[in-house]
């Protein structure tokens, strides 16, 4: 499942929603990305995350299909926020549901790598007196 939203999400609720109907799942690896207080030697107060809404679902669907071909995934969940986010707020959740541990780890790592490269989001960091668009540093 792919969700692109402005609102925060609850990790427990989101994972349980999928997991509760998948009793064969023994392993869930998840990654959560947050807004950090410091980046490129500057104090960050908040970020604005721009998204190309029409493209992002296509792109993330491609990535999850590839991940499912490569690793034995039973399901996967991606939630990515956009808009205005303050320090400590969640940006992204990727959760990979598998029978076994290593499959879920590998799939989650794989999806995050591709998401960082191809998902059409752009971060603008807001400092005390100005703001700046980021280049992806991976």
């Amino acid at each position: 499942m792919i969700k692109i939203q402005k609102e925060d999400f609850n990790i427990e609720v989101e994972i349980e929603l999928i997991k509760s109907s998948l009793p064969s799942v023994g392993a869930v690896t998840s990654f959560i990305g947050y807004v950090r207080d410091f980046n490129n030697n500057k104090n960050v107060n908040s970020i604005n995350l721009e998204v190309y809404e029409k493209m992002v679902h296509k792109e993330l669907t491609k990535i999850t299909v590839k991940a499912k071909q490569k690793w034995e995934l039973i399901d996967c969940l991606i939630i990515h926020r956009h808009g205005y986010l303050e320090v400590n707020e969640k940006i992204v959740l990727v959760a990979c549901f598998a029978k076994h541990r290593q499959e879920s780890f590998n799939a989650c790592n794989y999806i995050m790598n591709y998401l960082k490269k191809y998902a059409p989001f752009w971060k603008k960091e807001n400092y005390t007196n100005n703001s700046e668009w980021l280049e992806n540093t991976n």
Partner: protein
Amino acid sequence: MLIKYFAWIKNITSCDQENLDSKKLKTIDDLKIHLNTKYPDLKKHIDKDTLRFAINQEYLSENKKIYKNDEIAIFPPVSGG
């Protein structure tokens, strides 16, 4: 055709999207030449090949024909996640 701009490219174009006349623009390369002229500040980025192009929400890796109803997006490397 509809051209969409994202992130700091909008600062150069002063708009987030615009319709261009598709009669003279037959390929992505035609479009690049057109934009270089229209937005001189964009030229160095297009020349350095740092920007990404997508036609109808699909990444583009080489020059390609473009059509009247296409949606073409131009953006810097992504930085989500």
